[in-house]
């Protein structure tokens, strides 16, 4: 088991290194001078002397390998550089905004698993029946509707027509916990709807497969009550792939809440990234992309380990 975790961690570290390197190369090999870009205001060309001074300051005149080394050293020490726009350390902004993005993702995951596993199980038990047809259709529909469409329609219904919830914005939890949660509800629910569809479909497929297994027949042969067979033998085994998918989806969401944060004015990490992209603020873009990639890889690692804990056979296979 420990060997398995060590091996997976090693692979994860390697992937992080690859991503950091690729992002560095991408941003340095593309045409365009960041210093010039930074100093130019609209169509007015920048003062060449100022550009040269800035290039020197930013280390852009050093050979590429030197820049790469200092970049890696910065990453290792947690220094992601300062923003072009306001000179503030990028890492501070990330630390401030990342928890807000996590809030949305975790809220969505809670909604999705809480409803998706029972719905998917129900659909599987009633496979090819009416309940299954209805659940499966709505899952497909929810999966097919992009989050910004859901978000916009949700605002139209709940904020504008019914006036139950605010349309968007952010209030710190420490200032007004109730308002904070109210504001969180719509973005988390919007992301949750999409995730719910994924979890429902996955649970359905997984339960259907487990139902055909011999050990379920054994459980029936023991004379166990239905509920107990369902809980201990069917759902427990069916959950293993569902947890995997949930983990992978949550990883994708770390960088994928862009649209939801935009729609609901939620000042999370992704919204920060969009504004950084808009402003061509390279240190910010690199810092955020790297943070997200590291978290993504790390989350995949956690998923693998949790999987190995849930399914005792896995550790046997690799060691």
């Amino acid at each position: 088991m420990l060997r398995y975790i060590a091996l997976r961690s090693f692979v994860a570290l390697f992937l992080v290194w690859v991503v950091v390197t690729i992002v560095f190369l991408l941003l340095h090999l593309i045409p365009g001078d960041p210093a010039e870009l930074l100093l130019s205001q609209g169509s007015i060309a920048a003062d060449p002397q100022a550009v040269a001074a800035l290039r020197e300051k930013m280390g852009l005149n050093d050979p590429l390998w030197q820049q790469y080394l200092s970049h890696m050293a910065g990453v290792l020490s947690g220094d992601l550089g300062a923003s072009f726009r306001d000179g503030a350390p990028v890492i501070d902004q990330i630390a401030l905004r990342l928890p807000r993005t996590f809030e949305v993702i975790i809220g969505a995951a809670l909604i999705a698993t809480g409803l998706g596993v029972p719905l998917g199980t129900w659909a599987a038990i009633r496979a090819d029946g009416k309940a299954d047809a209805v659940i499966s259709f709505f899952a497909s529909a929810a999966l097919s509707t992009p989050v910004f469409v859901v978000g916009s329609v949700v605002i139209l219904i709940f904020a504008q027509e019914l006036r139950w919830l605010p349309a968007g914005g952010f209030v710190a939890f420490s200032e007004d916990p109730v308002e904070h949660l109210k504001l969180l509800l719509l973005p988390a629910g919007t992301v949750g709807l999409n995730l719910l569809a994924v979890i429902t479909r996955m649970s359905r497929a997984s339960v259907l497969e487990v139902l055909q297994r011999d050990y379920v027949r054994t459980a029936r042969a023991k004379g166990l009550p239905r509920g107990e067979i369902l809980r201990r033998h069917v759902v427990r085994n069916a959950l293993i792939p569902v947890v995997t998918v949930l983990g992978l989806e949550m990883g994708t969401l770390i960088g994928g809440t862009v649209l939801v944060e935009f729609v609901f004015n939620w000042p999370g990490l992704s919204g920060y990234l969009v504004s950084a992209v808009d402003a061509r603020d390279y240190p910010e873009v690199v810092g955020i992309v790297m943070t997200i990639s590291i978290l993504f890889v790390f989350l995949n690692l956690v998923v693998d380990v949790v999987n190995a804990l849930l399914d005792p056979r896995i550790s046997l296979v690799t060691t």
Partner: protein
Amino acid sequence: MNAAARKLILPGTIATLIVVIVLAAPILPLADVREMDIPNRFAGPSAAHWLGQDEFGRDVLARLIWGGQASLFIAVGSALAAATIGTTLGLLGGYFRGAVELLTVRAAEIILCLPPLLLALLVVTILGAGTWPLILALTILYTPNYARVVYAATQQVRGLDFVTAQRAMGTHPLTILMRTILPNVMPPLLVQMSLIVASAMVIESGLSFLGLGVVPPTPSWGLMIRAARSAMEVSPLLLVWPSLALAGTILTFNLLCDRLQSALDPRSITAGGALWLRRRTRRAAPAPVPATDQPPLLEIKELSVAAQDLELVRRVSLTVRPGETLALVGESGSGKTLTGLAMTGLLPDTLHVTGGSALYTGRGGDRIDLAALDEDAIRRLRGNEISMVFQDAAAALNPVLRIGDQVAEAISAHQTLDGAALQNRVLELLRHVGIPDPERRARANPHELSGGQRQRAMIAVAIANNPRLLIADEPTTALDPTIQAQILQLFAQLKRDTPEMGMIFVTHDLAVVAEIADRVTVMYAGEVIEEGPVAEVFSCPRHPYTAALIASVPEGGAERLVAIPGTVPSPRNMPEGCRFAPRCAFVQATCRENVPPATRPSIDRITRCFRWEEVT
């Protein structure tokens, strides 16, 4: 056309319709998408503008159709580009493996380390917004998906005989790849294609919505939704149209993908659901059966099992007395396992008991028809009075539950034992079935036990509540010969320890029958063709099939083995007369036309043969 293909028609038609309308945009009589009409901004639907006018007074319908063209062009374009690149990488990686695989498939997979939307944003940062950067971003994004799918499919096809044969003949690898492997990996490729078109539309519209995709004034659904949001209070309908168009189109492609998948790969649809889990109307309690003086433990009369119109078990009758072991023998497909499952109510959902009865004498002396019981009633008997041991213990044990817990739940299903007493009973059972160091094994997961120990654990589960009838379905088939002998000894020991327990031993191994059974019932093609005491049947078979089976057993002194010519007939193609006639050495005209009745050569024997007197 089968059901899966029929289900393709609806999404297929809608998808075609969407593509045709969008492609026909230049020739349709649509208003100019850029023509503004400020005085009539936010006007509702009218004869000239069917879906109304937007914030600049432009025609919404025209913008919707042209916007669809932009979205589809980007989505289909990038899906095709990614398909070409990804398929090439996947084919090369899957066919050559080794270093090529590392450079193609594994290299492409690095892209999967980045969240998709993030990657698209990164490309747009570098290249700026617009149609072509978007296509490039999406192409990069989806290449690994194709590479993976094609890689997996190529590896599968590569191992097939006809590819190996071509390689052996020295055909150029490129020819093999293009002519043989590519056509074979097309089905998963098609599925992937429709999935990616849908997914690409999601990302394209999302980026356009953020203002990082399609550049205005080119219409696009994402941009229309973006504009409509700020005008939501004035004209909510402006939001609804592009949302419906976008979600509807993506849904169509997703459904197409789902149905394509089930049409191309029928195996992906598992037999639906679980009837036993659904709440059903309670069946009327079966009519009481008059008690006789000394009823047998189990008396199956004329039991038939069918799948829809296909009869798999026909009018099987057999009897088990208390303390007796009955061997149920036959080749695979003879219906012996189905008979066992039918009497415990464990038949798969697609099979049903269509006639006959299985009268069981319970602990209280009451006789119950097992075939007529509902799920709840038979559940109280299962594992309690009647229990089963299955063939493949590795599959029959839950892989994620500890052995001790799996034994314990069998006990608690029918008895109320608390913590320590339950634990002691579990250990006692494990010890009883010969598992060494039961304290440790009880905490083990099934995969940590050897095959023989797993089967012992299964037996411990089966005898947990001192059953009166034990049905063992080929319990030694999956084991090594030496372990087989040990498990048989365990069954023999169980018989000695519980002399009143009846046992049905399902097997195809006659050597096992001789060792363990008192009586033997031989099944062929879903029918019982001979029954009698083991010693008598073996020394003097009364059916040509039994005789042939005995002759085919390798024995110490046997000079040569006699194989039975031909195979068991399929249920769809049952011979009209005697079902064994096509393979029988004693066959005559009457056998082919008439079904032989069950005949009694002596008081406790049955045969289903016209010429039984001539067999031995």
